[in-house]
């Protein structure tokens, strides 16, 4: 039992950070919004890191999974709103549907794209968010480009007050839970054969194959896991906070860019990295938007280039090498 605890001890700083954020948000007036945003970015980073960080492959269409998750929740709410006696269970069903849809989409995309190597994979994914968005708009699925507005149904299901509490508090708590869960899954993978296989294939895919690793299988595992978290994130942070969904908004490549920034900044492939990245990016963005609105990407784009060229391991990666022999090393995974 003690060994198990030691194995998972790297989660301590992660959870401590999340708890700290939560407490600040609850107790300092006016901070909840910022905290909610930071938690979102941490969750986004943890989820994206499971694929980008652990496999070294870039999925440029990542936001599609968030979009699909949002639709899942929206559809559950609108289709089941008038069914008697379901009430809050509908929200749960919404999450299940979001999970199901993002899994399906990731299997569909993965089946094609994951057979391809590095650059070809990136090319294949570059149009996923576009492709899916234009499928919805073009074939007029789920109301096509008009999107779905479900404020009324949400109020109907939960009652006005509860619905409001959901959008300003409980949805963000869900995001916190997701961030914590994603961190746990990341560490779980890292400590298991999955993690070793992913490290091997990230470093040298051909050598990994010869060592007996079924690289496609492990890529798929990481891909689907990462996609599922994205779907749940979309369902909670998007659908439940702002009860409408429009294709151009939920398939906006902007979020993929942010996910990339967060993971690279913090340290791809590390446990603590996305937390560090999420906090740094979130806080910078928040204060930038106060003093110099609209230019955060302008500032972060060259920063990404600098990181790639000069600090590819990110903040946590660098700390890892500096503090290699100290007692803290245990936590800097």
């Amino acid at each position, binding site marked *: 039992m003690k060994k198990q605890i030691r194995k998972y001890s790297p989660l301590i700083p992660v959870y401590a950070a999340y708890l700290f954020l939560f407490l600040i948000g609850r107790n300092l007036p006016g901070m909840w919004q910022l905290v909610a945003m930071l938690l979102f970015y941490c969750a986004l980073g943890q989820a994206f890191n499971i694929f980008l960080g652990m496999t070294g492959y870039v999925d440029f269409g990542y936001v599609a999974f968030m979009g699909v998750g949002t639709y899942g929740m929206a559809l559950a709410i609108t289709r089941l709103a008038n069914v008697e006696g379901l009430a809050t269970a509908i929200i749960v069903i919404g999450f299940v549907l979001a999970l199901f849809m993002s899994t399906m989409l990731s299997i569909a995309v993965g089946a094609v794209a994951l057979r391809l190597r590095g650059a070809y994979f990136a090319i294949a994914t570059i149009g996923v968010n576009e492709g899916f968005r234009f499928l919805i708009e073009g074939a007029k699925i789920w109301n096509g480009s008009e999107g779905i507005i479900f404020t009324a149904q949400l109020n109907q299901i939960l009652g006005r007050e509860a619905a409001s509490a959901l959008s300003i508090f409980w949805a963000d708590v869900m995001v916190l839970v997701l961030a914590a869960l994603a961190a746990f899954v990341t560490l779980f993978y890292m*400590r*298991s*054969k999955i993690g*070793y*296989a992913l*490290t*091997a294939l990230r*470093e*040298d895919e*051909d*050598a*990994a*194959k*010869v*060592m*007996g*690793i*079924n*690289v496609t299988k492990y890529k798929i595992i990481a891909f689907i896991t990462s996609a599922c978290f994205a779907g749940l994130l979309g369902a909670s942070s998007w659908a439940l906070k702002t009860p409408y969904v429009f294709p151009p908004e939920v398939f906006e490549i902007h979020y993929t860019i942010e996910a990339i920034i967060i993971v690279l900044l913090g340290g791809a492939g590390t446990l603590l990295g996305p937390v560090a990245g999420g906090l740094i990016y979130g806080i910078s963005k928040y204060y930038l938007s106060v003093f110099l609105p609209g230019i955060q990407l302008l500032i972060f784009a060259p920063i990404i280039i600098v990181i790639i060229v000069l600090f590819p391991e990110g903040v946590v990666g660098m700390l890892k090498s500096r503090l290699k022999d100290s007692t803290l090393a245990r936590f800097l995974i």
Partner: protein
Amino acid sequence: MSLLKLDHVTKRFGGLVAVDRVSLGIRPGEFIGIVGPNGSGKTTLFNVISGVYFPEEGKVFFEDLDITNLPPYKRAPLGIGRTFQIPRPFSSATVRENIAVGAMFGSMSHETSVDDSLEIADRTIERIGLQDHRDKAAGTLTPVEKKLMEIGRALAMKPKLLLMDEAMAGMHPNDIDQMVAFIKRIAEEEKIAVVSMVEHIMRAVVGMAERVIVLHQGRKIVDAPTKEALENPKVVEVYLGHSRKG
């Protein structure tokens, strides 16, 4: 019972025939050298055996199982291990983790958990003498250390057949002798058949191999015990024009 059997294997690349109807057999625990100058088809043959290429004609059998078209990751659990001429470590992982990967996905993968693998890695590290580097990132090792680790990683897979690709190339003769003695010892202890591929019949092969197979332009021209092969006029002819110690 043969461990590995190649039956008239032919591999073509466009119009070029890299391996031309090669047949050979290897028994468990045997020590073979595959020798031939550049372009003789050795590397292609190796790649066919390890599954990187699939032959156009012919069959490959491992313990009587037809593995001709089996992907490489399925051959490792059967007991086929391989090292590369230029070592390919997983650079950001530690030596211990690198070798553990071998144990995790090799022939004993079903019964080997992550913790078991790490233990096996520790024992292997002791045997190959890399204890001081156990927790260092593999990318920071010297070339010789990397070669050792590469062999350790392959050994951790508990292979029945070890394919060694020019493992001694570029090494100091003393180091080669040591390495040869080391591999011989381990292979005898673990009953591993070793196929060592080299460009010339160097001290590495002479010290280790009981039998030598010589390739020339994709075809097998000699398959005989080492001493005989060294004296074979065909072999001498093939190497005429190529310098060296034999």
